């Protein structure tokens, strides 16, 4: 069993990054995730593993530092919150286009604009549908506990390198700020230069040896037919992720007449709502997508003919619900419930929404 600690989500993700053998973190302070860089600066991982930590002058710079280090085959992690993630979008699009692996955490706060520093899930579209320009996808993980904040770092890097694709960990101010018991993984060594050469010599730009052609990291191809081919290649990769990398959880779903679909914090809250409903004799289950992209389409579609209606619960005005509807192809009635703008729904509010759904209101 790994080391047990009581930690904030933001601290856990930072400590997990050190232990995952990450080479560099670049970031810029923004609430509610500044603890990530604060923890790293205090921890001085350069003394523990040689990991580099740098506070950039802006999110534009931070994401491009990520791009640079990732281009050399280095394991890079960064984190921010909604307004900062908006600034990341240009860089994320380049990273996706150039097929660079990295892990980006978004500790979401309410928007639009400067919004609020309170938790929200209103960046779902931005994470899953491509907030930057062009046809690209991020692999998006949605932790619903401090433990998952920590665990998804290693999982994120595994996927990022397997597919040479950026990975987004989308939590929110609640998961980032709350303290829970967390079991930390043991320290993994950072890759040596020799290991990086062995694994990534076919693409990474760390200096051209005589044994190979130069490596070029780019997303540009002025020849549209080649750019289309590159896009086909990206799409094939995304289809593979959809086929092989979907993660989800089902709680009390076997005998369910109704489903709540919710992720992250909303799933945490909805778990309690399921208990409250079950105590009242309502047979309801919780379906929790863990990957927001690829979304568990088939897995949710399997409930067609089994449940009478679905309540899609999220701290936004209705973004997740679009994927829920796509998944069930209009074969199950789906309703949205959620507080937003930084407000968090209570389990009782979710229960009331569920009861209204059942009554047909």
């Amino acid at each position, binding site marked *: 069993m790994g080391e047990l600690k009581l930690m904030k989500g933001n601290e856990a993700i930072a400590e997990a990054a050190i232990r995952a053998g990450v*080479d*560099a973190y*670049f970031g810029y302070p923004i609430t509610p995730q500044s603890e990530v860089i604060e923890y790293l600066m205090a921890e001085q991982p350069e003394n523990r593993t040689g990991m*580099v930590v*740098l506070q*950039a*002058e*802006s999110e*534009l*710079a*931070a994401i*491009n*530092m*990520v*791009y*640079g*280090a*990732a*281009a*050399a085959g*280095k394991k*890079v992690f960064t984190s921010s919150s909604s307004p900062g993630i908006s600034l990341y979008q*240009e*860089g994320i699009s*380049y990273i996706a286009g*150039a097929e660079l692996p990295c892990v980006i955490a978004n500790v979401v706060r309410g928007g639009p604009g400067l919004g609020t520093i309170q938790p929200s899930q209103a960046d779902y579209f931005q994470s899953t549908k491509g907030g930057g320009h062009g046809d690209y996808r991020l692999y998006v993980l949605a932790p619903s506990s401090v433990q998952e904040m920590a665990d998804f770092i290693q999982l994120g890097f595994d996927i990022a390198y397997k597919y040479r694709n950026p990975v987004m960990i989308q939590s929110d101010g609640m998961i980032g700020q709350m303290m829970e018991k967390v079991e930390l993984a043991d320290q993994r060594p950072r890759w040596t230069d020799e290991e990086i050469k062995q694994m990534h010599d076919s693409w990474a*730009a*760390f*200096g*051209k*040896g*005589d044994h190979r052609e*130069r*490596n*070029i*990291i*780019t*997303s*540009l191809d002025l020849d549209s037919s080649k750019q289309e081919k590159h896009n086909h290649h990206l799409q094939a990769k995304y289809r593979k992720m959809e086929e092989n990398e979907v993660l989800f959880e089902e709680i009390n779903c076997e005998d369910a007449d109704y489903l709540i679909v919710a992720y992250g914090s909303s799933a945490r809250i909805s778990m309690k709502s399921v208990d409250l409903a079950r105590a009242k004799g309502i047979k309801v289950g919780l379906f929790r997508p863990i990957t927001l992209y690829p979304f568990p389409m088939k897995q949710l579609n399997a409930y067609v003919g089994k449940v009478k209606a679905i309540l899609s619960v999220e701290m936004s005005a209705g973004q997740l619900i679009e994927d829920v509807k796509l998944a069930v192809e209009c074969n199950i009635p789906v309703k949205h419930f959620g507080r937003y703008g930084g407000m968090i729904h209570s389990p009782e509010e979710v229960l009331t929404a569920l009861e209204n759904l059942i009554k047909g209101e």
Partner: protein
Amino acid sequence: MDIKDIVKEENLVYSKTNLMTNNVLSYCPGCGHGTAHRIIMEVIDELGLQSQTIGVAPVGCSVLAYDFMNIDMIQAAHGRAPAVATGLKRTMPDKCIFTYQGDGDLAAIGTAETIHVCNRGEDITMFFINNGIYGMTGGQMAPTTLEGMKTATSPYGRDLKKMGNPLKITELIAQLPGTYYVTRQAVHTPAAVRKTKKAVFKAFEVQKEKKGISFVEIVSNCNSGWKLPPVKANQWMVEHMFPFYPMGDIKVDGHLVNSNKAEVKS
């Protein structure tokens, strides 16, 4: 005399730069970009740094530099090369990292990245191709465009009241403690090429010694953007660009050269 009599060892005055690829340059005939590429690649070759060097070229006419420079290359977003180079250098402190940026790139959209990379004193080398215009996008006004200069977005000439002043970013970054060697050169004559080559050597040496930023501005022509044939463009550059962007060292060994100290005070 036929060609065989001419192609002889003793008649060789110049050969193709080793570290330039065989791809046909995408630059307009007479453009300074090609010469600047060649000089940089010659120096990397002569210093034996090919396997140690990673270049970063952001958006601008030189966005395709990776087609021509036979080293590992990274194409960066407009203005962001200094941040990309920071990511590279921080994780590979012993590698040789350079950026190759235009004036629109380095002094407009990437001003923040430029100033902060210089202020942090990252151990990288920056090449700054100042042609006073946005070449790639068809000759729009750049931050470096001279007063009265006509461009696609200043068709009646740059009006300082309306459009702001030409920005001497090189003098500006020379003020920062993170910069160690700052110089302004050109590539329009053999003599200028030789001087630039020396500057490029020095710049890479400074990087090797990890003394902070080495920064080589190359004032260059943009025949297409300036709408002048190459020779006339070079004449125009000497007559108009050089008085405003004077040639020579601005900071050496971490110290401002005298003429620049005076200019900053006035």
